[in-house]
């Protein structure tokens, strides 16, 4: 198993290098690089003598031109950038110095801050929304899927599938607008706030009040990121439960006289989890990436909003960094999936 994991980690290196190459090329060939700062507020443009200097400076900072404004060839730019991003440094592990890579994500053009700091600022809110949403989705969708499988063809099965698929079909942007318009509006139901993470004045809040206020503000974003997820997971769970219920061991259990509930929860459940592990691995990058639509709609400054604004403003270091990080996370979560398979299913062996 260990050799397998090590082999996988080494195989990641060429994949990562390929990824950096793709990311770099796509961004350098994209039009409009280094001129995102020309827009002033309200969609108006400002005429300025300094624009050229600003663009030249931005290009120099991105390593696209040298000090005199002469263009640097693309392949050279790539290696310079790669060299800046990944450095070899020595780590001291219990007194022994071993060489290892250090990743430097660079500095944002717009915020002029190390990108690591930006990510640290943005990540907590994105993660908290997504983890709560995922837990809710799983808690509702899995039992729902199991019940559907148990009552296959019965009214509940049809109703549940109709219900979840209807939810799945509703566009997020519409539901979000409706939620703000009806659930956060004094004219209808002012149950939730329309934007932000807590009320303006929290100085006198106790811990509990602050926590409730925070959850109250997150309620709508969580609602919007939850409702569409039931259908897919429920269907997966239902299908894999049904597959397993047909198998010999389930029939044996039934023949032994075990109740349907015990068969479902004790025997079939575990075996039906395998497909869900794949799905879970697919969710992890999304957990960190955040949803652009939801974050923009609820004015939440999370990871999705960061990437989106960086794309609009051509903040290349930020786009590269978030692309690189999410790429790495995808690779790692695939590895974790494969390990989880082995743990969940003793028949799977990689040695």
């Amino acid at each position, binding site marked *: 198993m260990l050799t397998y994991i090590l082999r996988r980690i080494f195989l990641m290196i060429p994949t990562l290098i390929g990824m950096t190459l793709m990311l770099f090329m796509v961004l350098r060939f994209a*039009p409009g690089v280094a*001129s*995102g700062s020309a827009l002033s*507020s309200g969609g108006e443009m400002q*005429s300025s003598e300094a624009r050229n200097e600003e663009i030249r*400076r931005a290009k120099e900072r991105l390593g696209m031109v040298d000090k005199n404004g002469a263009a640097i060839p693309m392949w050279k730019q790539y290696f310079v950038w790669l060299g800046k991003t990944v450095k070899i440094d020595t780590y001291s592990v219990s007194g022994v110095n071993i060489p290892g890579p250090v990743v430097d994500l660079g500095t944002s053009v717009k915020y*002029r801050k190390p990108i690591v700091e930006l990510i640290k600022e943005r990540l907590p809110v994105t993660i908290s929304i997504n983890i709560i949403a995922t837990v809710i989705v799983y808690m509702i969708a899995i039992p729902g899927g199991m019940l559907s499988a148990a009552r296959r063809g019965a009214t509940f099965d049809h109703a549940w599938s109709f219900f979840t698929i209807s939810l799945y079909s509703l566009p997020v942007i519409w539901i979000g607008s409706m939620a703000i318009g009806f659930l956060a509006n004094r004219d209808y139901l002012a149950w939730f706030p329309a*934007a932000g993470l*807590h009320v303006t004045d929290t100085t006198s809040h106790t811990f509990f009040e602050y926590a409730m206020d925070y959850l109250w503000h997150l309620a709508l974003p969580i609602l919007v990121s939850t409702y569409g997820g039931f259908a897919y997971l429920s269907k997966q769970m239902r299908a894999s439960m049904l597959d397993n219920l047909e198998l010999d061991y389930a029939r044996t259990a039934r023949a032994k006289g075990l109740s349907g509930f015990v068969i479902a929860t004790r025997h079939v*459940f575990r075996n039906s989890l395998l497909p869900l592990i794949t799905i879970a691995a697919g969710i992890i990058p999304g957990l960190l990436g955040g949803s652009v639509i939801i974050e923009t709609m609820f004015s939440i400054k999370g990871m999705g909003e960061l990437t989106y604004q960086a794309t609009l403003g051509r903040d290349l270091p930020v786009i590269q960094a978030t692309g690189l990080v999410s790429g790495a996370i995808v690779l790692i979560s695939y590895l974790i999936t494969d390990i989880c398979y082995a743990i969940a299913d003793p028949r799977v062996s990689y040695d």
Partner: protein
Amino acid sequence: MNNRFTFKDAVFAFILILVLGAVIWASAQFSRQEHRLNDVRTELSKLNVLLASGVRTYSTTQAEGVQGVKPVNIRRKNEQGGEYVFYPEAPTTPREPHGFPDYASGDWIVQNLGSEPAVVTPYIDKDAYGNEVQRPVLETLITRNPETLLYEPYLAESYETFPKELRYRFVLRKNIWFSDRTPITADDVVFSFTTVMTPGIEADSLQSYLKKIEYVKKIDDRTIDIKLHEPYFQGLEVTGQFFEIIPQHLYAFKDVKEYNARTDHLIGSGPYLFDPKKWEKGQQITLVRNENYWGTRPSFDRIVYRFISNSQAALQAFQNEEIDGVTPQPDQFIKFSSDPEFLKKFKVFKYQRPNAGYRYIGWNLRKPIFKDKITRQALTMLIDRRAIIHTIEKDLSSEITGPFSPIVPQNDKSIQPWPYDPEGARKKLTDAGWKLNSNDVLERDGVEFRFSLMIPAQSSNYEQIASYVKEQFKKVGIDVRILPTEFSVLVDKLNNRDFDASMLRWTGSIEGDPYQIWHSNSAKDKGSNAIGFANAEADKLIEDARKELDEEKRMVLWHKFHQILNEEQPYVFLHTSLSTSFLNGRIKNAEPYLVGVNRDDWYVPSLQQKYR
């Protein structure tokens, strides 16, 4: 098998994750409270120090005059034809609120910024949002009176201009200090200027204005002389208002990297204080009243800036009274400004600012189809600009005839807008040599009248106007392709002159400098004259007007320039936007001035105050 993963285990795992999450979250919250406790502790120790040294009180209105004689403001011409202005009293806003019977200080004002500023450090701020946060914290030598639009001394008690020598003299007030009570001296002014002009400081656009300054010289502790390289009509603005005064002892830096790296270093002499710890990322920035302020004590205890970018959510938050002011979208304004329920609780303002920008369609004059002015005049006559204002803009903009706001003296009011006259336009097109060809498209010298109109993407209003223009042009045989373009790409294309026509907005100012957009020098390289307008007479007028310091003579030159543009029609000047805003009803004394609403006037009577 003992490693069975059963349903029970799954439930258990869920609970474990929940508990873990709760623990992490709780510890974050406890540390937050610890921080607050620390704040209280430091505040207390500060108070202790203060108590130990005996409590001092500072008068809020200084220079009440010697022996009760009210000092007099002076504004007179000097022998060089310049101006001497002396305002001995601490400046106040024109609509001073302190005199109202229900005046009370206190309460907070919660405003919406629309987006989180990237940088708030002076000079190197990148967006309008950073600038907005700086405004209550930083101050300048002089400022424009929002009512009279005249310049008045601010940190300076007097200024004098010497047009013949291109010199401006500022004398600082006697008792002014930064928020840490360090006096403001001439050295700080010199330091502020040198900071902006240090090579490598990321203040390119500010530098491009300030490079007109030859020197900033300290005469004595309170007197500063500033000289320009050449006469410039905005000389007073450039020397007295363009750079804010920052404290030398707090901003001193060894190399520019150090200055550029600080994104939240904002300390000045203004009525409010910025504290990096009160910048909650993604949520809000809180400015606290400067209790050490040298001038008139402002009304609000705090100014809070929230960052709500979604306009629907911003309006909801406004209606729920989570924020006190909002700039509505046109449709929101139309809907609510006539809603009696809304008007009971909120104030609605609509006004025309002289410094509002304008929208235009610019023709790339390098293209043969747009080369002659008869064709361009015809194109203008094909577009019913009044109809656009009425139906698409919902009367929230007004007609213009050139690049100047219709309410500023720079604008030549005698110029009549080109009529909407499709028949006349058709005739002009024929005169210009355009004939319908077999494709039903106008053709001249073998070139068909087809072009693409570049507009900013994701802006429905632009798309509506563009579709209207397309329809109008189609009727006479001109084929328009609408090209919605992402903003960064659009700027690139303008810079590379790679476009046929584009619809955009320019920002405005009270007296604008047309050099960047209209002078033929700006058409070279990557200047802002993207359409390549080059007219020797206009060039000469711009150059002369910029050097003309006499206002009346200058206006004559601007009017001539305006007439040339009107004749040449290099742009179709569409309209200038009106400003709209909603404000919470508890805020009093909030009528807007010509240039907009002014927070310094506002107050909340004590019974209606919302925040303690």
